[in-house]
């Protein structure tokens, strides 16, 4: 049995390529074109000209953010009704569907008979979350979304990776939280397990 051998010839250099100097010239031309184009654009940008042409592919991250796709899944938020209460009706669908089991909801009875329940507690452990977006898909009330555009999630402890209802309802908040601004009755990290707030301040019956 003889093995079939396929001989792959190396491409021979043409005489022009073997001269080497013309090829160096070609490479030099390319790098020089890039050099002067970018130099000109950098200077022009300083003067406020040609802003639509990029001089460098670099995105200087903390100063300059990469534009996100509209369907990009970033940190979660809970959408809020006009009176400042969460839209969430405590149906537990998101907690149930969550493959990472990072959502914890404690539902409570809502004073409005048309709204059955609301979340007394709503925690997401971002250290566990896999950003699959199922919670958003499954929500019947459009109460949870992943469109805050927040990417820089970092903390010094696992505990600090847990978001409670304050941070979820107001993405601008950052740990450590100092005071609890929510009026409706809820449990949060500031309340040490006690219920805080009342429905009186929300304008609800």
């Amino acid at each position, binding site marked *: 049995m003889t093995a079939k051998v396929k001989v792959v010839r190396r491409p021979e250099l043409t005489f022009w390529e073997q001269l080497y*100097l013309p090829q*160096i010239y070609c*490479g*030099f031309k*390319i*790098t*020089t074109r*890039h*050099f002067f184009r*970018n*130099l000109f654009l*950098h200077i022009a940008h300083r003067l406020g000209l040609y802003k639509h042409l990029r*001089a*460098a*592919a*670099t995105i*200087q991250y903390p100063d300059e953010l990469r534009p996100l796709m509209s369907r990009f899944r970033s940190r979660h938020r809970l959408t809020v009704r006009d009176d400042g209460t969460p839209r969430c009706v405590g149906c537990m669908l998101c907690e149930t569907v969550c493959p990472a089991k990072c959502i914890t909801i404690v539902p409570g009875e809502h004073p409005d008979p048309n709204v059955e329940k609301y979340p007394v507690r709503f925690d997401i452990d971002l250290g566990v979350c896999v950003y699959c977006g199922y919670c958003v898909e499954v929500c019947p009330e459009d109460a949870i979304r992943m469109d805050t555009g927040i990417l820089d999630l970092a903390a010094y402890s696992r505990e600090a990776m847990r978001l409670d209802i304050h941070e979820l309802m107001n993405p601008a908040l950052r740990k450590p939280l100092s005071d609890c601004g929510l009026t409706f009755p809820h449990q949060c990290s500031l309340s040490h397990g006690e219920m805080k707030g009342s429905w009186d301040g929300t304008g609800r019956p």
Partner: protein
Amino acid sequence: MIEVLVIKLTLAGIVFFTVLNFAGFHTWVERKQSALIQDRIGANRASIFGLRLLGLFHGLADALKMFTKEDIVPAGADKTVHILAPFFSVFFALVAFATIPFGDRLVLGTRVIELQVVKIDAALLYVFAMLSLGVYGVILAGFASRNNYAILGGLRASAQMISYEIALGIAIIGVIMVYGTMDLAELVRRQGQMIGGWIPFWGILAQPVAFFVFVTAALAETKRVPFDLPEGESEIIGYFVEYSGMKFGMFLLTDFLDTILVACLATTLFFGGWQVPFLVADGFHFPWGSVVVVSNPVYALLGVASFSIKVVVFCWIFMQLRWTLPRFRYDQLMDLGWKGLFPISVVNVVVTAVVLVVFQEVRR
């Protein structure tokens, strides 16, 4: 006497200061130029009181880092030689600048100052001697480290530098034959004559082949990409693998100093040194007959400026080549040196000799 000493020391100080600062500046140029070539921004974060200046302070930060890093001498190393090697390397690169003429005569009162640190009749030989001695720093570093990779790097470096020096030297012979002198100041002065009153008779016109051989060999001499086999960052690290802190920094500095030295030599030998076209000692004499009179200090300054601009352009070209070309393989490198550049330079010398003799016969 004391006056001469002061003048010489001042000149030496100026050259020393300029060259070292320009070498330090090269770290910034290298970062930024490579960034521009590759559509990046380049290091720009180092700041003093929030002042960034396009990352100019990164050079300072580098120096600070180099000086404060731990200086390690390997246990098996020859300690004295290990410490001496980087000093050799930098020393020979620096002293070679002494004979480079960076301007014409400056007249202060009755005193005529040659803008050149030392005037040696065989200046070219001196420069090449210093370039060759630079090999010692490299090979001693390799041997003193007692590290196989370092020795390999050192041997590669010395083999490369020796074989390219031959092509370099023979390429220069053509220039020496055309201008008939080895004194660099005189050589530059002779490049000031005009061909038909219009074109300055610079070395590039007289010896174009020698120029290409010289630049190629000189690039090999600086041990940077595409001829960075002694360092071989991706394979053997090179002769300075066992160096840290400022001693490593000195090898880095040597590379930059060599680049500047080679740019100075290319300018002096092939691009008329401090010559400005149509400018002679008393002013501009344009071929269409008009004359612009220039006083002596302005004339000298114009010369220095012309020299500096040419050197900067050459440094730019070398840096551009460094970021354009890939690296040679070692056998290709040796092939190019011995089978390519060496014969070309020899043929160049022969052809130059024949042409010169024919010209002399015709003139007679």
